[in-house]
């Protein structure tokens, strides 16, 4: 029997309007049954301030079901090593089950960071 998990949640750490210019992080996660993958929509910035929230969300997901995570990065403006660390620790768990992280539609600057760190050879970039 395959456990089907349906979940949709939005967590906002902070929200700024146009004038304020500061973006924080919005996280949306859901499990896609037909694809058998977690879908994670990241919007805003992952940095030292917001990385904990991402770590929490990812841990929750993988504890519920250890399956591929497909991250939609269309609206992910920024990530640095604090965010990459979250992916790396998730990868350690995922690789045991031969699962992976898939990053879709990410900005060139983020792709560059994955190249530099060699993560592009481990994570799947679409």
């Amino acid at each position, binding site marked *: 029997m395959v456990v089907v998990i349906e979940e949709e949640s939005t967590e906002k750490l902070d929200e700024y309007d146009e004038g304020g*210019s*500061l*973006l*924080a992080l919005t996280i949306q996660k859901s499990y896609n049954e037909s694809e058998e993958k977690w879908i994670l929509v990241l919007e805003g*910035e992952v*940095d*030292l*301030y917001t990385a904990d929230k991402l770590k929490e969300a990812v841990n929750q997901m993988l504890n519920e079901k250890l399956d591929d995570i497909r991250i939609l990065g269309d609206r992910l403006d*920024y990530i*640095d*090593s*604090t965010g*990459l*660390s979250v992916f*790396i*620790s998730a*990868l*350690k768990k995922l*690789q045991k089950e031969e699962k992976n992280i898939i990053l879709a539609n990410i*900005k*060139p*600057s983020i792709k*560059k*960071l994955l190249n*530099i*760190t*060699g993560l592009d*050879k*481990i994570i799947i970039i679409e």
Partner: protein
Amino acid sequence: MNKEINQEMIEVSIPHRAEYVSLIRLTVASIANSMGFDIEDIEDIKVALSEACSNAIMHGGCDVGDNFLVQFMMEKASLTISVSDFGKGYDKNSIQEPKPGELNEGGLGIFIIKSLMDDVHIDTGSSQGTSIKMIKNLREES
């Protein structure tokens, strides 16, 4: 009166708190933009500076009530950024570069800074604060 200025300096002193790193990114994006850096370079600079600020905050060992210092030196052809904390410092020789192919959550910050910036100097020791200076050169207009 209107003699040309070859070097200008902006200095920001800011608490050791994670929530202010985005403000520093905002600041440097605006400075780099007005200097004529292109989008790719601006993103590189934002990441490198964030890494340095994150290190000051996470590893400096300072009180959150204490401030660290970010200096921007704007020259015609380059931007030099220094991040100085007055924390516990560290022993540079004990730090290893990340190994390709190995999954390691830590140790990426300084490696990323060195990859993205044109020149990086670190001044630190096991009981003095840390000061990291990074330089990005403007590309020649083609």
